[in-house]
């Protein structure tokens, strides 16, 4: 109770501070001048202090270490909640969701494909450090250090278990989202993960109505379905999922030997507990193997179909690029029947020659053609692997976390009656 009151007080303090600062700005509306004075051009804010970037990295390491200690050593769900709330306040509201590990994927890709882009060290650190921790300890980053995951987690109240087949099917979306975000970052088009981050607008109190609505929808869904963004959208989660599968010291449900008491069976809202699989439950080995080989063999075909589809779709993909959009608009602009858009006016006043725009746009479209092939082939590969993976069976005796899907939220720990 005391903890709750302390937390509410802290929250009121934070919100109050922001509110006071905002009110002060409103006290003096801009005056109107009759003398022809023009208001000065709004200047961009100065880049954030380098010290903050260093502090962010240190806080990330500290939070990761602390939460990992809570999960693996203390086996404490309360500790996870405490770190989650801290992450929401610090990485979320205070640092306004930037830099974040989820978005850092794009910085890394952009740096790989554009030699002229120098990736900020903090972005690189935010990409690498959670991966290193995941490699050793599982997805402790997702548990409560990532503000996007944490904010969904605090909203989870009445978890509903989705059908497993549906989870599997929806689980492919993050791979597609990852592929798209890599494509757009590699072509220096956009950081779509950041642009369509449903929670960053809430953290910043600044977003379009559409993004607020998306954020609110995710939070509402989070009340019933655990971490919908993490499970069915997060592109960084894809990478963490793969790395976590080989993690050495992943969280275990039981601190000792599993006694198959089944108490933990329905404790995971993410449905990330592998239940024991007996020989009787498995499919006939011969038919399963035959299907596995068959599905494995059609993977190249799926990749070709996917690549061809992606290549055909490349123009639509390319239209996300602002230069391509502008060039397309310029190309079809008819001064007799149409009014110039702000983008065209802006371009004209920039003085840049139109031929250069067309040349650049043409080059970008070409990049998207090849990118479309690669993206489509990647999606084909993912679908192929998912299909063949669904034809394999593993004998299992104990209740164990699904290392890839488990976000180490530590909810299951207190369900296990076994002591050390």
């Amino acid at each position, binding site marked *: 109770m005391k903890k*709750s009151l302390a*937390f*509410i007080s802290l*929250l009121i303090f934070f919100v109050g501070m*922001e*509110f006071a600062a*905002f*009110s002060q700005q*409103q006290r003096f*509306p801009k005056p*109107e001048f009759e003398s022809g004075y023009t208001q000065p051009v709004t200047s961009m804010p100065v880049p954030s202090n380098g010290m903050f970037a260093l502090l962010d990295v240190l806080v990330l390491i500290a939070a990761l270490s602390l939460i990992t200690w809570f999960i693996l050593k203390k086996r404490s769900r309360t500790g996870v909640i405490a770190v989650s709330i801290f992450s929401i306040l610090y990485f979320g509201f205070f640092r306004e969701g930037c830099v974040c590990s989820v978005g850092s994927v794009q910085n890394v890709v952009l740096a790989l494909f554009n030699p002229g882009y120098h990736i900020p060290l903090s972005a690189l650190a935010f990409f690498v450090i959670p991966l290193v921790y995941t490699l050793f300890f599982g997805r402790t980053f997702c548990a409560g250090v990532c503000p996007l995951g944490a904010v969904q987690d605090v*909203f989870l*109240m*009445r978890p509903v278990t989705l059908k*497993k*087949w*549906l989870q*599997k*099917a929806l689980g*492919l979306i993050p791979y597609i989202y990852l592929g798209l975000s890599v494509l757009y970052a590699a072509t220096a088009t956009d950081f779509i993960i950041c642009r369509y981050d449903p929670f960053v607008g809430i953290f910043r*109190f600044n977003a379009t109505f559409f993004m607020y609505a998306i954020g609110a929808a995710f939070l509402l869904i989070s009340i019933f379905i655990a971490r919908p963004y993490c499970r069915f959208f997060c592109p960084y989660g894809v990478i963490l999922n793969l790395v976590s599968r080989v993690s050495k010291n992943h969280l275990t449900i039981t601190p000792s030997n599993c006694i198959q*008491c*089944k*108490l*933990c*069976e*329905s404790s995971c809202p993410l449905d990330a507990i592998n239940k024991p699989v007996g020989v009787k*439950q498995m*499919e006939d080995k011969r038919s399963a193997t035959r299907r596995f080989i068959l599905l494995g063999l059609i993977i190249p075909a799926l990749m070709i179909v*996917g690549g061809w*589809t*992606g290549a*055909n*779709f490349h*123009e*639509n993909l390319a*239209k996300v690029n602002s230069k*391509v959009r502008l*060039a*397309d608009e310029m*190309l079809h602009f008819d001064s007799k029947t149409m009014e110039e858009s702000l983008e065209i006016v802006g371009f*004209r*006043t*920039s*003085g*840049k*020659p139109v*031929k250069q725009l*067309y*040349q650049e746009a*043409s080059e970008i479209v*070409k990049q998207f*053609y090849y990118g479309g092939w690669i993206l489509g082939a990647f*999606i084909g590969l993912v*679908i192929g692997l998912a299909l063949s993976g*669904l*034809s394999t*069976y593993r004998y299992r005796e104990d209740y164990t976390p699904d290392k890839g899907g488990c976000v180490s939220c530590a909810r299951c720990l*207190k369900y296990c009656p076994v*002591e050390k």
Partner: protein
Amino acid sequence: MANKFKINRTNLSLWKGIAMVAGTFSFVICMLVLVNYIQINRIDPVNTEVINSLVNRLNENPNDVQLREQIREMDLLVRKAYFTNQWQVKAGGYLFLFGIIVTAIALQLFYAGKQQLPQVSEEEEENIILFREKARKWIVIGGFGMVGITLLFAFLTHKELGNQFTEAATIAKAKHAETKQTNITIVAKEEITEPVVEEKVVEEALKEEIVVPVAEEEKVVVEEAKTSSYKGTYPSKEMMANFPSFRGPGGNAIAYQKNIPIEWDGASGKNILWKQPVPIHAYNSPVIWGNKLFLSGASAASREVYCYDRNNGKLLWTAKAEQIAGSPANPPEVTPDTGHSASTVTTDGNLVFAIFSNGDLIAVDMSGKKQWAKNLGVPDNHYGHSSSLIVFEDKLIVQYDQKKNSKVMALSTSSGEEVWSTARKVKVSWASPVIVQNGDQVEILLAADPCIASYDAQTGKELWKIDCITGEVGPSVAYANGIVFALNEYASLVAIKPGAKPEILWEAYDYLSDVPSPIAYNDLLFVVTSYGAVACYNAKAGEILWEKEFDGGFYASPILADGKIYLMDRKGVMHIFKADKEYVELAPSSLGEKSDASPAFADGRVYIRGDKNLYCIGK
């Protein structure tokens, strides 16, 4: 173990109550914020019906001070309401967030209190085979659905976007072309009413008719920038009797010759006195001194200056620009529409000066003998250097605006030694310098992104500059009656009152040029666009007096002679019309071959460089 499964009992009714109150509060706030948000989106504070009707009333009765005040008050009110709404939305957002957080905490504590001990599930064992089969089925269905929808969209919206852009780039590139050899001149004596060609007549004309603009009310205000006083007259009588540089003496697009023919026909030979092939094609224009006409031509391998006898068309000599110290082994890459010799040569009557795309600058005497040559460094210019040369007394003025280290310099005409050099913080420019006399000062006027700037021709000191132009500037400036006119495509047309504190008198956006330069004459300004439109502006007020569309498109800059404007279109048809407030066409005369060069004038004759041949037209 007992502790592990201990459930913290909370005051369920308290947290339920808090959750309900906070939830209701959040809902109400959310609705209010939404309503406010919708309201903001529907209101445009600078375009309200009431104010607009009041403004209309004020337009009918501009002296109604009370109405004016009422509009101001109303405007302030509307703006205040708008910003108050914004403030309310933001403040509501904070309150909403606060309410949601309290609701979430209360609900969490409520559900924590309702927690039950873990129980063994009594559900039947999961059928793994069935779940995997279903998952595979839905992944396949999803995959096919995705491919189908993607392909449907792709085929419905497919339009060869890449090819369209490539073609558009090619067209735009061709359009941009060649001339960047624009030029400029600013003849200080704008009020001179075309003195006659013959030297004696010119002298008299100068004495009687030249009105020095400094004496006028609208004289150029450059007094504050006095750096050196100039006692002479620029352009000189000799220059005015000849056609010594691109767009004539000083480069202001005004020729001082009279009795120029307006009718000819290349196909039938009507009024074509002679026609001679030019050895190497280029986009520069002819210049004339005495009986000699000069041109240059260049390819990647060769750079040459030609001298013709303008009376009979005989090629008198060819001077090659070769073996120049510092000249690069390989010429720079240039676009075909600019070429290696887009800059027009210039002469002071003693020497002829030519510059090429690789930075080679050569001075030859009137018999074709090389006097000096130097390499200025390969200009970093993605289309090719095209700024033309111009002479001021004993100084050869070179505008060398490139990607880095742009500058304007004066070289000694006799030795090529640098007399002065002034660094310029500008981007690449293809415009040419214009020289104009303002009182006791001679100014070099240059155009390049981002400014129009003036330099003292004697010292190179920057007199004034004004940021008002952007992009790849091709057109040179024009000058008349103490006003400088500059323009560029996708930027604007500006009239500048020069001086230590230059001001923009007016600005227009209707007709902009990327290649041809304008002409300012008396109170008129003639703007020619590369796509074929020509407009005449009131030079003082900026209003359009007339506009006319032509088919051929223009790259050549027009020249005014004998009160008539000679404007060559890209098909080789010279459009001749009166330099007047109303459009009066005098003649379209065809050359019979394409041309992008500006004409030169001498002794009642017109000299035109065609695509392949040089023409002399006269009666």
